[in-house]
């Protein structure tokens, strides 16, 4: 009985201390404009500290056995699990749909290369041509400029600006997509973005290499070496995998994009022929 009373006192004393510290921390974090999630976290730290200290002095529980012990243990696990799953779910979640979208783009080209894919592509082209024909017919039929303005055309009167590069057939835009999908930025810097330790910056590569040479380099990394990157060349830093990973069409797109990179203000190193 005395034990219980002194424990109750202890709970009140340490609980109040924890609360005071917690409220103080919330005040400080609010004054420093911490996001709310951190204000809650700091309050939780204070209460966690109070709980640990409280548990150090708590009187012993009555030992349990049999079903009671099993239920207690299960309840203990449910609490731990609940906090864990709750914490992980409340924190910012990445959306798997983003990755699904990227995978879809990557796989599209692969699927297109198959017989079924080719048939699908033909059908899609036929559909697009038919739509284009319909649009021309409607234009011809239209008399006033107001009617024309309703058509979803782009600034240049071609494809709508919001359409995907694939729909537009724009090789350079498709090549830029390949740059991202193949993660070239991981080793090459472009417009100040990406890594540059393993490979040269690419901003001026269009002035230094012809499309044929660029193609050769992508297919066979040993064929050309960037000046000043001898060590990287010797260590075979550039992977020899793109000939297997990329379709011919994808390589053409990438090369078309790289050929447009002509910014002489960036010191892209000269390419030295090795093979």
């Amino acid at each position, binding site marked *: 009985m005395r034990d219980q009373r002194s424990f109750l006192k202890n709970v009140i004393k340490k609980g109040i201390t924890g609360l005071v510290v917690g409220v103080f921390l919330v005040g400080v974090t609010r004054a420093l*404009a911490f996001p709310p999630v951190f204000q809650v976290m700091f309050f939780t730290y204070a209460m966690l*500290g109070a709980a640990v200290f409280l548990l150090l002095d708590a009187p012993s529980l009555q030992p349990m056995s049999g079903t009671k012990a099993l239920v207690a243990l299960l309840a203990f696990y449910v609490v731990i699990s609940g906090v864990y799953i709750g914490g992980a779910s409340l924190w910012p979640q990445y959306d798997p749909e983003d990755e699904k979208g990227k995978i879809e783009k990557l796989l599209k080209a692969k699927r297109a290369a198959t017989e079924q894919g080719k048939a699908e592509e033909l059908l899609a082209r036929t559909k697009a041509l038919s739509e284009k024909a319909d649009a021309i017919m409607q234009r011809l039929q239209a008399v006033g400029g107001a009617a024309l303005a309703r058509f979803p055309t782009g600034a240049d009167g071609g494809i709508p600006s919001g359409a995907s590069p694939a729909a537009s057939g724009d090789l350079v835009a498709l090549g830029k997509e390949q740059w991202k999908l193949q993660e070239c930025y991981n080793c090459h810097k472009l417009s100040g973005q990406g890594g540059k330790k393993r490979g040269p910056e690419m901003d001026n590569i269009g002035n230094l290499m012809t499309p044929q040479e660029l193609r050769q380099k992508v297919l066979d990394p040993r064929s050309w070496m960037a000046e000043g990157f001898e060590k990287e060349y010797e260590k075979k830093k550039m992977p020899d995998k793109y000939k297997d990973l990329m379709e011919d069409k994808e390589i053409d797109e990438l090369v078309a994009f790289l050929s447009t990179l002509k910014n002489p203000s960036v010191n892209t190193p000269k390419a030295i022929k090795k093979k």
Partner: protein
Amino acid sequence: MTYYGGHRGRSAGVRRGRTWSIAALLFLIGQLGIPLLGLAQDAASTAATVAYRDIPQLGGSRNIIWVIAQQHLLLAGFVLGVPIFAWVCEIVGVRTGDKRYDKLAKEFTKLLTSAYATTALFGGILLFMLLGFYPKLMAYLTDIFFPSFVVYCALFLLETVTLYLYWYGWDVMQGGGRKGLHLFLGFLLNVFAFFIMIIPNSWATFQASPVVVAEGSALARAWAATWNPTWWPVNVHRLIANVVLGGFICGAYAGMRYLSANTHEERVHYDWMGYVGNFIGVFGMLPLPFAGYWLMREVYQYNQQMGITLMGGFLSWLFILQAMLIGVLFLGANYYFWLGITHRIEGSEVKYRRPIMAMLVILLLCLGVWMTPHSLVASLEEARRMGGTHHPLLGVFGVMSAKMTVVNIMILVTFMSFIIYWRAGKVETATWAKVAQKVMAGVLGLAAIVVIVLGVWGYFVPAIVRINYFSVVQVLIVLFVLVTITPLTGLLMKSARTTTEMIWGRMPPRAGYALVLNAVMVILLMTLMGYARSSSRVHWHVYGVMRDSSQYAFSPALGYAAAFMSLNTFVFCLLVAFIFWVATMGDKTKTMEPETKKKLPAGAYPAMAGGSPTLDDRNKQ
């Protein structure tokens, strides 16, 4: 006596029967396994037509593999970690002559035998599932790694034979020179276990960091693929993690037995076993962050994008979850030490209250820093108020320099908890004790200051200097503290006088729960790291080489993954509980052997750390 003999006879019969059953089972597995390996080439040809199979009614191929692979990995971690400290305990028993260590080592090994069969069973299920669900990937991996599959099978046979000799030969090899042979078997067991661990590691690490597989013989190609950039960092990380997992699971087992103990002797034994389990887990945990740091460094060096995906990309909040788990683990392990100080050593409660309070506050502060992400979640309005997505103060805590510093401080605090526990209830009598105390205090204080200074300085130097020099120096300083203060304290304690005897079996039931909590945290951590390693490959089976084109190629969101990890942890706990129940079935019929009770008062046992009446007796003489 007759009954005992009869029991022994029966158990020997049962043992013989069990050995035959196991042998038959192994033979059957072998019969099943050989044709499987032989058919590997056929599988390669059919794989061209079938890339994936699925059973959506059972949750889908990925989820099935997730559960089975996780169970196999956790069981394997336990099975490979436990022999290390079982063997060390046996050596300690031989060197000190203290029978308790031998008994403890035997108890650990007993758990091992039942766990071993279950691990193999899950390994077999995993193999079948992988062959069925991912034929193309398996054909590709088989093509590269076939020689190492053969070595793995051979090692598995050797490990099995050694384990059964080690376990069933325990009592027979007690006397004379045979104990040396038994210790050698323990050594061999660990050597085989180590290689059994690193071979599958090469398959998994190749998927994450493949190297150019050179043309050449099958052996040369397998070797080139095996020696990939993350192989050794993962080997070291897993080896340490297995010891930690094994230690904390044994601790949880002891905690459970302690909670359900019916006699004082049982409480004394399992209290002590729980302490040893926690001790092993904590000491394994101390170098673990360093191994993790090395692994991440190699990942960054291999592929910056993969490193960014993990630490700064969509998986970055995963590391906040990791910080929470490790933080609770540190708190749990320290709490158990503090409970030991307050309950096992009378009078220490008041003496050490302030240091405990200070250590708790430091741990919480460090946890706060560790759990601060680099880029904060902020609404547009919050971001405007903060002046960007990085808070001027919080953003400072979110970077690696701050995190490395607090991890090192947390390790130092945990180490101090242990040292205080070790010294509690004793008075140093050595003439050089005062000097030694000053030296230890100086080393610890100076180490903490240098770690913090390097951490702050790290903000003002290029990342490469911080990663290659500052962080490494921080790690070396903490290791230096560990390797200087431990032997120094050991020497001091050798001649120390015990003022308050350490009494085992007096811990409150919540100590048992703390041990269970620590085990659950470690298991959750391992499941989380499994998710991290798999997700870091994003939509690749073999990073940059073989794409995952199945419908499950995307990474699941963190909340969903956490629920799965929790399920995996629960299933693993059930499995372990079942294994332990089976392993200890026979114990209920055995009577306790009250050997040491005659010499010492009830509950008073010599300890690895704490009061030691044996030493006191020696001092009196």
